[in-house]
């Protein structure tokens, strides 16, 4: 709780310090706020994948499909059907959650590496659909999405950079999801998840409906990823099929692994670290004068070191990748 308050205060301070107009120059340029927003968006995604990977211990490589699906649903509703933002936002979550059922279904029968392959394929199918349909704008995607508004006031008209409200809304989502996961983790549903993670047959023998709870985890994860996708594309006012791809999925899963499966604080750490680090290294590249981006090399190295030194993640207590 204290961590959540401190975290929120820091985020809000970074977001609004410029609005006070204490100095002539911006303390945090628009670019910083962009990074902050993206970090928060990935925090929500990482948390939502942690419902699947942490709570029930299943590895999914298709999580970005829900992120992108939420984005496309919301983009199409607002652009083609002229729907207002907020209903589209909710519907993006609901549709992603419904699609979570067919992705969760194979998890009832298979697990481990087999499930990784199935979920990977699932994510790629969505990417190819988005590339090949006319309505989704093909490989170029859909530009010019509407900016959300609250009570007729557009998000971008508030604050110095126009990103402030987006940051606050994403922060609220991240905090709500963190609260949600903490509460559920310590409830009877959390017991069911823990039992399934440990031993499915024993869980069933304890009276846990294994199929229902596995699907529930996938549906909850997909719902929150869908919501994030919607807000994210309206922030960029643009969506492209890259958002759905396996690269995104791998990135989110890496954030879960680096931060620590099952750890709520770890999800934030993983998401911020892996969003901020590549941006920081881009600066380093300019300063040192490297001809290549050191990020990809360091990224691989980081993962190897993580797996050797702390396979349960920075803040993880246990791991789905048991030794």
């Amino acid at each position, binding site marked *: 709780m204290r961590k959540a308050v401190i975290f929120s205060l820091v985020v809000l301070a970074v977001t609004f310090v410029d609005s006070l107009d204490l100095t002539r120059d911006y303390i945090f340029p628009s670019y910083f706020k962009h990074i902050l927003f993206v970090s928060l968006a990935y925090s929500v995604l990482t948390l939502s994948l942690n419902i699947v990977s942490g709570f029930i211990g299943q590895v999914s490589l298709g999580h970005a499909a829900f992120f992108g699906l939420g984005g496309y649903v919301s983009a199409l509703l607002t652009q083609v059907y002229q729907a207002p933002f907020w209903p589209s936002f909710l519907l993006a979550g609901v549709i992603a959650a419904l699609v979570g059922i067919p992705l969760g279904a194979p998890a009832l029968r298979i697990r481990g590496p087999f499930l990784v392959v199935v979920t990977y394929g699932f994510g790629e199918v969505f990417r190819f659909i988005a590339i090949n349909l006319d309505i989704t704008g093909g490989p170029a995607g859909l530009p010019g999405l509407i900016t959300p508004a609250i009570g007729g006031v557009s998000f971008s008209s508030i604050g110095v950079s126009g990103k402030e409200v987006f940051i606050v809304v994403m922060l609220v989502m991240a905090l709500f999801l963190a609260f949600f996961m903490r509460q*559920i983790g310590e409830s009877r549903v959390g*017991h069911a998840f823990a*039992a399934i993670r440990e031993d499915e047959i024993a869980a069933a*023998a*304890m009276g*846990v409906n294994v199929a229902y709870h596995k699907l529930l985890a996938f549906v909850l994860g997909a719902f929150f990823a869908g919501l994030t996708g919607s807000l994210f594309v309206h922030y960029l006012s643009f969506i492209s099929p890259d958002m759905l791809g396996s690269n995104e999925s791998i990135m989110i899963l890496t954030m879960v692994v680096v931060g620590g499966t099952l750890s709520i604080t770890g999800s934030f750490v993983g998401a911020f670290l892996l969003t901020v680090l590549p941006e920081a290294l881009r600066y380093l590249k300019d300063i040192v004068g490297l001809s290549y981006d050191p990020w990809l090399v360091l990224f691989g190295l980081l993962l190897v070191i993580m797996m050797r030194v702390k396979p349960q993640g920075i803040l993880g207590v246990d791991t789905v990748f048991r030794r």
Partner: protein
Amino acid sequence: MLLKTEQLCKKFGGLTAVNAIDFHIASGEVVAVIGPNGSGKTTFFNVISGILPATAGRILFNDEDVTAFKAHDITKRGMARTFQNIRLFQSLTARDNIVIGRYSRNSSGLFDGLFHTTRLKQEERENEVKAAELLEFVGLTAQRDVKARSLPYGAQRRLEIARALASQPSLLLLDEPAAGMNPREVDALLKLIEKLKATGLTILLIEHQMRLVMGIAERLIVFDHGEKIAEGAPQEVRRNAKVVEAYIGPEVSAGAKH
């Protein structure tokens, strides 16, 4: 009858693991299932507890047809079990294992979980009391916060029984509870089962250790190649020629007699 099976069959492809078993157990009885390795005892347990679906036949639990029920539904109706190869929640503590064992006796859902309602809090208090009682009962109070995988073998077996008891079953299935135990652990287990018997709990167990079976079971069922070959009081079954043959092999010839 608490539990009754009629012509129960389980086939895996061409292999008939359980063949046309008629079986019954009354409330308060202690019955043991014995038989050589691979005779279908554990498969029989898996079918009646709903972990494997039956191929043919019927299972009646408390006069209700539960043949097509999944394991979690059967547990809710009052059947609990342990496993031959211990299936504890290894990285959870002894206390957590028992609390999860209480799952079928609680009813709070997602909403209660999100807002930690009075219902959830009430259940948590009950679970805590029950867990303390059961840890005491199996002598693991001191190991309350020890992870299941760190417990000694005998303690793991006892914890698994406590976890099964947490669901307040009317029928307890024990699959080889003494497997791999040393004589002292077997004695402790025998005392534990006697205590359970005294509370009037109905127990069905699979066991190889004759000492345990003879001391505790009122009735024996003998399996061989998936079929029931004998049934009766322990002393009778011991003298049954078919049982001796199943365990040791057929008598060689009359000339071999002393």
